[in-house]
């Protein structure tokens, strides 16, 4: 063991400029790679790291020293991951399920908005073409939740999702956005159906029924989303 190069952490030479923000960003990415840390947990750990860095700087350490010491104090991302999952094994899954349902909701809204256009405005005699087009659309739409589920399970785009979660932030905002989506897509469908029905001489009384039944499904998902939403400012109800 030659005692010369025994630094546990790589210590850069003084000439190279140390970028504290870049180092913190790297750390954030590393933390985002841990599967069991919910976005709220990562945010909390980040504030802890920043607090530690700030305190070490106050004590006279430079940016680089403060960062590496703070990093070591907060703990290894992998170790944190293991400890956090012990405390609340369901938390990270609630968040994952939320995003999967969000994907289902978005893809269904998208197809509800686009499919009427195909059915209503494309001439009736090119029915095979519309068939093929609608099946392709359906396949593409159902791919979205699958892609999101796989990427979340692999720990990809986690930073993006935690940023999105922070943006959603408020349960009331989410509820308004989601129900607006339902209203918009349902009304588009109604209009399209009305056009289609008039073309086929179908009586409009069935229209309302059709509209209502097609709204039930997205409404259920909308309620589910609002309920599942990973809240940032949670106030746990008092239960014995």
């Amino acid at each position, binding site marked *: 063991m030659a005692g010369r190069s025994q630094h546990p952490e790589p210590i850069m030479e003084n000439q190279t400029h140390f970028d504290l923000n870049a180092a913190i960003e790297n750390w954030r990415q590393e933390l985002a790679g841990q599967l069991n840390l919910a976005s709220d947990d990562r945010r909390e750990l980040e504030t*802890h790291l920043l*607090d530690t860095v700030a305190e070490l700087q106050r004590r006279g350490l430079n940016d680089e020293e403060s960062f590496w010491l703070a990093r070591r104090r907060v*703990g290894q991302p992998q170790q944190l991951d293991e400890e956090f999952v012990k*405390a609340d094994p369901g938390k990270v899954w609630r968040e994952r399920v939320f995003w999967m349902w969000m994907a289902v909701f978005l893809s269904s809204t998208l197809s509800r908005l686009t499919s009427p256009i195909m059915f209503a405005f494309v001439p009736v005699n090119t029915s095979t073409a519309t068939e093929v087009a609608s099946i392709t659309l359906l396949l593409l739409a159902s791919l979205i939740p699958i892609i999101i589920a796989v990427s979340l399970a692999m720990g990809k785009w986690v930073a993006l999702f935690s940023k999105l979660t922070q943006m959603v932030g408020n349960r009331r905002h989410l509820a308004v956005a989601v129900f607006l989506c339902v209203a918009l897509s349902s009304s588009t469908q109604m209009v399209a159906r009305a056009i289609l029905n008039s073309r086929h001489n179908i009586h409009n009384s069935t229209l309302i029924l059709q509209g209502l039944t097609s709204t039930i499904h997205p409404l259920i998902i909308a309620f589910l989303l609002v309920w599942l939403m990973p809240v940032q*400012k949670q106030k746990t109800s008092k239960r*014995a």
Partner: protein
Amino acid sequence: MYKTAMLAKDLVAASSKPLVLSILADGESYGYEIIQKVRELSGGHIEWSDGMLYPVLHRLERDGLIESEWKEADTGRERKYYFLSSDGRKALKTERQQWLAVHNTLSRLWKIKPISI
């Protein structure tokens, strides 16, 4: 690495609940501050590794003993503050009785004056 003056690992784990509850009984606080307080009050005998406190806090929150809220601190950054719930206050009372019972038993054995519970 091991210092005799430091608390054993299982004792650190067991005492984390009454310590957190007692600190929060004095008013809301956040993870970093809680660790500082424990280090200070224990005279350095209890050293919590930073990342390990949060699972403890989250478990207490899940049990309904503490509650949390993201709030902007004077630094302008947001921090997750924790505060005691009414159930937490009750739990602290029980913890206090139990820890003092242990303390008094040991005190009598060691011929130190016990503390009234």
